[in-house]
């Protein structure tokens, strides 16, 4: 619409010039098809557009004939420019086909879909019918443009694209397929087997109950330091498993080992003394 408004000054310019007007006399098109029995022939209306587009199959032939005459006196004229314009509105693809006109103004054009001309624009299966119009230009007459009909033709090969063309548009997204997460057995199974590992304790506790051992020297000052230090050593190993690094373990463990060794020597000496006779 804005295009129309912008070109309004050009139309005003056109009206200023007075020259003879061209028109078409008896424009007709004929479609011959190998399947149909007789060719379909129809006149082309310059005033109103046909309701349905002209459909051409892959082997059909469209023959267009008309005569270019001056509107006033009907004299045949050979204009400088007689072009058939095929225009695809959706993609903007256009094809211009010049038509040979005799000096008397008679013109014939044949479009054979079996051997299409190079001027036909590429079409895709989803593209709308091509708008076909006739452009008449002359040095001695006013130019004229006629919308003839809409033409539906079979789809063409797709236009060959430059190999780099795809990188000038949005490229498809790529998502990396990751390895599936490591599968673990279900937790109840692990819990059951952990409980199974604890069953020997049940047996041990049962057997201890029958023996009923006594620990009279548990809090003796010669035994207790060693047992607590031994417990601390075990706790250090547990702490190492959870959190510590080797350097720290060796440091703490070194200190603890010296203390445990002295306490242990004392404890073992004491039990030895007990066994040999002091109790």
């Amino acid at each position, binding site marked *: 619409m804005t295009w129309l408004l*912008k*070109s309004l*000054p*050009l*139309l005003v310019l056109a009206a*200023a010039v007075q020259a003879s007007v061209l028109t078409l006399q008896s424009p007709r098109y004929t479609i011959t098809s190998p399947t149909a029995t007789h060719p379909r022939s129809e006149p082309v209306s310059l005033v109103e557009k046909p309701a349905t587009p002209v459909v051409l199959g892959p082997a059909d032939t469209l023959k267009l004939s008309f005569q270019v005459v001056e509107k006033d006196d009907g004299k045949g004229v*050979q204009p*400088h*420019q*007689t*072009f058939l*314009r095929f*225009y695809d509105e959706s993609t903007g693809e256009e094809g*211009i086909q*010049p*038509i040979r*006109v005799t000096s008397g103004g008679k013109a014939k054009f044949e479009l054979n879909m079996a051997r299409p001309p190079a*001027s036909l624009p590429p079409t895709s299966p989803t593209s709308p019918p091509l708008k076909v119009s006739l*452009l008449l*230009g*002359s040095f001695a007459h006013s*130019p004229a*443009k006629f919308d003839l009909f809409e033409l539906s033709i079979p789809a063409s090969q797709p*236009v060959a*694209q*430059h190999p*780099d*063309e795809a*990188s*000038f548009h*949005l*490229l498809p*997204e*790529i*998502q*990396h397929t*990751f*390895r599936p997460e490591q599968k*673990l*057995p279900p*937790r109840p199974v692990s*819990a059951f*087997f*952990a409980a199974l*590992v*604890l069953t*020997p304790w049940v047996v041990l506790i049962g057997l201890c109950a029958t023996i009923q*051992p*006594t*620990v009279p*020297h548990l809090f003796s000052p010669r*035994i207790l330091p*060693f*047992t607590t230090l*031994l*417990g601390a050593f*075990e706790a250090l*190993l547990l702490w190492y498993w959870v959190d510590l690094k080797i350097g720290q373990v060796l440091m703490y463990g070194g200190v603890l080992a010296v203390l445990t060794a002295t306490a242990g020597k004392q*404890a073992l000496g004491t039990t030895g003394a007990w*066994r040999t006779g002091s109790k």
Partner: protein
Amino acid sequence: MVSICSLLVSLLSLALLSLAKSSTGDSVLVVLEPTLDQANFSVFFDGLKKKGYELTFRAPKDVSPAIIQDDIPSFSHVILFAPETKAYAGDITPQSLVTLLSKNTNVLFVLSSKQTPVSSLAPEFSLILPPPGTPLISHFPERDTPPSVIPIPTTTNTIPVTSSNLSPIWYSGVSFALGNNPLLFPILRAPPESFAADSTEDTGADAVVDAAEKSGEGLWAGSSMSVVAGFQTREGGRAAWVGGVEVFGDEFANKEVAAGVKSGNAQFAQELASWAFQESFALRVDSIDHHRVNDTTVREHYTTNDQVVYTTHISKFNAETNAWEPFSGITDLQLEFTMLDPHVRTALPPVPGSPGEYSVTFRVPDRHGVFKFVVDYKRKGWTHIHSSTTVPVVPPRHDEYPRFLSAAWPYYVGAISTSVAFWVFAVLWLAGDDKSLYKKKGGKTQ
């Protein structure tokens, strides 16, 4: 001495005329052929001077100033208003012009229907020129100018390098077909009713049809032809191809397209020059940043399956302020994480609230190797944005795997109960009593 003085003077004048300028420099060399008069292009050249460009004029056969010396371009931009010149001085050759473009110097080429060295260079840019001697003519719309002077509406621009709301432009020259090179794009298309022909009377109609049938490429006609085309080189230099020099002339700039409506030639010429001289549609990458999520330091390497944040800052050149300003208007920027082939390609959206910043978070693939963050943005009319940052991706270290697994519970329980059992045994043995000893002793004493 003289050169230093002139340098100081030019610097001073540049400081005073600090209006719209190009992002690559202000010195323009205009190669004007002797048949063209500089005064006939005063509207165009004065417009350039007002924007702040320094124009230097020479004829094609002049030896100095040379456009390129020792492989260093002498000027930032070159305007070749020599459409019919067949012989140039030694420094202007097709090779030197291409070298200029590859060194980020912009060139404005002008063609005519005559065959010249410049028109032989045009096919290198994927332009297909009509046969020599066939200028563009159009009988539409009906007007009182000759058919070779054509008003072209500006409303059919698909790539808005120049505005599409200007008045129609007067044009006289040739049209050309564009090959399918994606670096080339049309700036102004020919009107659908125009065609290239050398006849001046209606009796030339047969020649037109013969020409179309004889040459394998058909007729140079219709709106698939262009009259102004732009070429963006990969290194950044821009080449603008115009089919006729009179588009820039004063006569067309002052001519009316309708009663009281001036043509859009003056503004179109300035907008074309501002695109060609990298004032408009010029982008660059300011900075790149990548780090792990919740981390601020840039790491030397990443581990597989990391979550990584990639941020880039992009600026666009603003000709009015002569500065690079952050630009958040790119909606289709993409990031590729590539090792030989892209493993991840994701959109890089602008961050709302932070001008010029584009950021995305993604997961590093679980392959190790040397990857690159690649941003490669190419669109017709815009400068190309390339950035590539190499980063190694290593597999996890021995202590970066999950520490405790639920499948290992039985083993944990077993090991801990062994330790506990040992300690209990030690306690019992040390602290315990040997009853059999008592019994024996008791038995012995009795």
